[in-house]
């Protein structure tokens, strides 16, 4: 027990890094995903196709590869090459990758809304933007909560990939302690930390689903 208490401070520090990466990614990826979804269903073919390629690229290659490329590969690109510090580089990779997944979730959600809702709004004089904001998207939120919840929980665990950039998140810190002490106990403590984080998310999404359950469709 004393051993566990002894390793808590570094593990908590690692958890802070994990949580920072998690929240920053969510804050960027959700709105970006929504914009991409709207662009994907746009009438402008070029825009829609471009976003299609983007989604294909980011869903079709390993997140680890994207992470490595943005950190190690981007500086060597001619003209656009920039060297990002580790946190922004990782954040960029996560946000771009998760936005692609969120985009597909939102697109499916938007397209599942009945045409009659658009017509009902149109005959009341609402513009496309008003229709989306006031009528369609509020209904989309209810429908996409379960898949968004899934992605969000996956993201908590995916943040551990940043160990390849030598960032001291929860998992990398844990591994360092395991190797230092020849004791596998930290793995179990880390597992409990991850479980607590995902439990909190599960609970949050349950609350949200309950909130949206006030109406049926």
């Amino acid at each position: 027990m004393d051993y566990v208490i002894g390793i808590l401070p570094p593990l908590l520090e690692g958890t802070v890094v994990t949580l920072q990466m998690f929240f920053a990614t969510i804050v960027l990826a959700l709105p970006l995903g929504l914009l991409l979804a709207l662009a994907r269903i746009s009438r402008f073919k070029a825009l829609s196709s471009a976003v299609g390629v983007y989604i294909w690229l980011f869903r079709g290659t390993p997140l680890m590869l994207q992470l490595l490329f943005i950190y190690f590969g981007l500086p060597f690109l001619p003209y656009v090459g920039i060297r990002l510090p580790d946190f922004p580089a990782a954040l960029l990779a996560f946000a771009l990758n998760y936005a692609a997944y969120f985009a597909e979730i939102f697109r499916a959600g938007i397209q599942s809304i009945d045409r009659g809702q658009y017509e009902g709004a149109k005959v009341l004089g609402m513009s496309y933007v008003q229709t989306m904001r006031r009528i369609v998207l509020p209904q989309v939120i209810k429908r996409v909560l379960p898949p968004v919840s899934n992605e969000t929980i996956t993201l908590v665990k995916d943040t551990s990939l940043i160990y390849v950039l030598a960032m001291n998140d929860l998992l990398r810190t844990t591994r360092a302690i395991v190797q230092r002490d020849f004791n596998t106990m930290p793995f179990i403590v880390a597992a409990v930390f991850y479980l607590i984080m995902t439990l909190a998310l599960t609970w949050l999404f349950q609350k949200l689903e309950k909130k949206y359950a006030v109406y049926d469709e």
Partner: protein
Amino acid sequence: MNMIKAVNIHKQFNQLEVLKGISLTVDKGEVIAIIGPSGSGKSTFLRCLNRLETIDKGTIEIEGDVLVADGGQGKVSYAAETEARQICRRMGMVFQQFNLFPHLTVLENIIEAPITVKGSKREDIVPQAEELLRKVGLAEKSDVYPSCLSGGQKQRVAIARALAMAPDIMLFDEPTSALDPELTGEVLKAMRKLAEEHMTMIVVTHEMAFAREVANRVIFMDNGEIVEEGLPNEIFGSPSQPRTKAFLQRVV
């Protein structure tokens, strides 16, 4: 000035010609019933009037303002988006499938468009909305969600929602066709009330008794054309066209 003036409306879906040159003028306070078999184009025609469908040929004017005009070279030219929206807003519409917004309560359904589109103040529009709900007999339902209502109640909310925008014209697209027979009466009653207040109305309907009793003019459409139009007594009593006769014999 006509409330609606539609001239020579043509509409094709792919290769299928659904409207073959429909013309109709509607005066203030007129109640027009459009009847005819399924697939005759009557709903499509109604949907063309408020831009739910775009037309391929013809002109439409609403209260003297041009919604769509002949653009030359066999094309039509619609008014600019903002202007077209303003013109169409003068026509309320009630759908067969209600199209209420499920995430909003009955009251919110009614005040949504006045607030977002017209910029009405909430405190001004809520009493009006409550008054409209009383008028359609649903005052006690203002805080429930549409899923808790029967079909007839949903449709009456839809009527109140359309009226909240203070339209000059009301379009009804088979408003009772999705309802159980015992629920059509309450909706027709609300519509009859509107007609008595001299609302200009176009009603696409299968309710022949309602058309006969409430309409000033009945239009029989078949196969994308207006076959015959006239006073209810003429159309229902002594139709001159064989197609009208055949249709009425089948439905009445």
